[in-house]
């Protein structure tokens, strides 16, 4: 809330046009507000108090289509396309907020109103001193205590909110009205009961050349494995630490005659920041440098009952057990745009470092457990690796469960010459 107050204080200071203490202006303004004077009147009063003319400097007047995240002091005219009341908890206190959509002929944007402005669906309103945040790569408007909303009789034709086209890799949780073209790679049919009624759901994995994603369809669109489809009006959410796309009978699903997407599904290498921003994904392909081998790498023992890694023959769940020997690596892979944790199971580990569990058992007998970790560091630290697998996110960040991995030996001379040519061409 303070930011909006600051911007009002800013306006006053500028309107006064001479040296005044910001702190004092703020104090004065607060006093008026506490007395229940509406913000715009309080503003005028403070300006007059300092001998200003009470002229409010022009604010940031924009069409909705021009609003960008982090815009402040916005002046807008729009039609409320939808609004709903919500209860949220802010610092342990329950508060009523209003969420909805406001639009004009250029765009429809989501908004959050932090108090009841008394507007309803269909109202055309003049909005002053709003701000914008960002959600899912889209601006979202905030109407705070400091925002003024005034109903008008003007009429506005809303732009038809067009579905936004995404590549699979750019799908992150929290998007709505999504359009995507993808191939259905797997499909499972399940019966579930929703509010006492039996319903069929269809779920699986679909993908385009940029990546793969889990999907759930709540309606039968007659799609089968292998189909290339265009879906519009879907939404995304986070499910078990990775993004998922969901569509129901409100969506449009069209089967395409394209063979185009058949090859190269999800084989493109993805910059790591995209994996981090999406909060995980299925069957990803990434490349980065190993910058850390974490504790718990090397030869470990697993509990025969629950498969957890155990320490000195004791499992946190099952107590004293006869551990089963295993090999793994926990590493951090970083490509300079982002970083992920990576867990390599025994197969992936043995393939990656071209040594097997027996080799490391011998090494342990000869030189101790630390030798194994040291050897892994020697073989991997600072080396570029190519990794495929599923990625999940939790409180600690994104973790890739590695399916396959190899150390790469990039051909840098050629790439160097290419980049040099590009740099020279800039002249």
């Amino acid at each position, binding site marked *: 809330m303070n930011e909006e107050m600051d911007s009002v204080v800013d306006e006053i200071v500028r309107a006064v046009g001479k040296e005044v203490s910001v702190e004092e202006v703020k104090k004065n303004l607060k006093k008026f507000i506490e007395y229940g004077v509406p913000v715009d009147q309080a503003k005028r009063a403070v300006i007059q108090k300092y001998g200003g003319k009470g002229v409010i400097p022009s604010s940031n007047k924009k069409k909705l289509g021009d609003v960008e*995240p982090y815009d402040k002091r916005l002046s807008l005219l729009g039609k409320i396309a939808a609004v709903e009341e919500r209860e949220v908890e802010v610092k342990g206190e329950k508060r009523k907020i209003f969420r909805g959509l406001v639009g004009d002929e250029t765009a429809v944007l989501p908004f959050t109103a932090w108090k009841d402005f008394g507007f309803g669906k269909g109202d055309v309103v003049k909005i002053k001193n709003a701000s914008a945040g960002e959600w899912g790569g889209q601006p979202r408007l905030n109407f705070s205590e400091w925002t003024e909303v005034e109903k008008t009789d003007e009429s506005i034709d809303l732009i038809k909110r067009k579905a936004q086209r995404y590549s699979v890799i750019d799908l992150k949780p929290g998007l709505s009205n999504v359009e995507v073209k993808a191939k259905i790679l797997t499909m499972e049919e399940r019966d579930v009961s929703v509010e006492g009624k039996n319903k069929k759901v269809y779920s699986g994995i679909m993908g385009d050349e940029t990546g793969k994603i889990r999907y759930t369809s709540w309606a039968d669109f007659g799609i089968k494995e292998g189909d290339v489809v265009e879906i519009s009006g879907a939404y995304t959410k986070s499910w078990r630490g990775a993004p998922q796309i969901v569509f129901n009978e409100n969506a449009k699903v069209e089967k395409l005659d394209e063979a185009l997407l058949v090859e190269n599904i999800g084989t493109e290498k993805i910059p790591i920041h995209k994996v981090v921003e999406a909060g995980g994904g299925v069957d990803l392909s990434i490349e980065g440098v190993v910058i850390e081998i974490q504790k718990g790498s090397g030869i470990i023992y697993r509990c025969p009952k629950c498969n957890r890694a155990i320490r000195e023959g004791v499992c946190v769940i099952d107590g004293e057990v006869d551990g089963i020997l295993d090999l793994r690596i926990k590493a951090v892979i*970083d*490509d300079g745009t982002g970083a992920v944790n990576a867990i390599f199971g025994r197969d992936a580990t043995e393939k990656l470092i071209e040594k097997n569990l027996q080799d490391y058992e011998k090494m342990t007998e000869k030189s101790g457990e630390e030798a194994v970790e040291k050897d892994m560091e020697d073989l991997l*630290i600072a080396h570029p690796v190519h990794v495929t697998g599923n990625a999940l996110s939790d409180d600690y960040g994104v973790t890739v469960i590695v399916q396959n991995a190899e150390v790469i030996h990039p051909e840098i001379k050629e790439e*160097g010459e290419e980049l040099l040519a590009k740099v020279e061409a800039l002249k």
Partner: protein
Amino acid sequence: MREPALRVFAGEYNESTHILKGGGEKVPSYVISPLGAKINRLFIVGVLTDIENVAQEGEMWRAHISDPTGIYTIYAGRYQPEAANFLSQTETPSYVAVAGKARVYEPEEGVVFVSVRPEMIKEVDASLRDYWIMETCRHTYKRMEAMREAMKMNPPSVYKLKELGYPSFMAEGVVEALSAYKDVDIDHYQFLIREALSHFASGKIEYVKELGEAEKKILEIVKKCEGEEGALWDEIVDSGEKEGVERNLVEEALTSLMDKGMVYEPILGKLKTA
């Protein structure tokens, strides 16, 4: 979220004077480079040129790592036991990889020294160093591009840069740098990349033999003239010419020796063997 380890040449990192301080406990601080790298953590591969224990008592190791554009300073003390231990027993010159946190020292207002506190340090080979140079060129080039795009915008917008496909990290850094640094001299960084890339350029390899001969001679000369403080650049060039090494080749040889970490510049204009 784990902070990514940025690839930034020493030439760019050392010119950073703007710090974005994190408010509150868990908000990280960043060094903003002139080209808009938003640095909390760095990944560096270069030549370890010298190591010194600078603590009054106990241990605080200062070391320098050279890349084709400049020199990083790293510090490791008792809170970085593995790095300190590594530095206490490593020979120079050698190729090392370092992942570490950006550190800032501001002795007075407006004066900023940046260094690196290693979280990981490891000896590597020349091929990994070359790969790092290539990667760092690529990242620097991308920032340069983003910076050019941002300069066309009025005002520069993080959102618009992201829409153009730049990672949010880069977009934020570039916009922050544009407002913090009055003039960002993009051409300077273009030069930096070119210097670094010329390391791989074709034709270089044949030249290397001739250079190799010159390098040996020049290295001897530097050893002879260096004393405590290091040898003066001009003195080396003069002595070189006396021994029949042409002026250009002397300079090439010196640059190459510096790249390899066999010679470094303890003070501007003076050279010392590592």
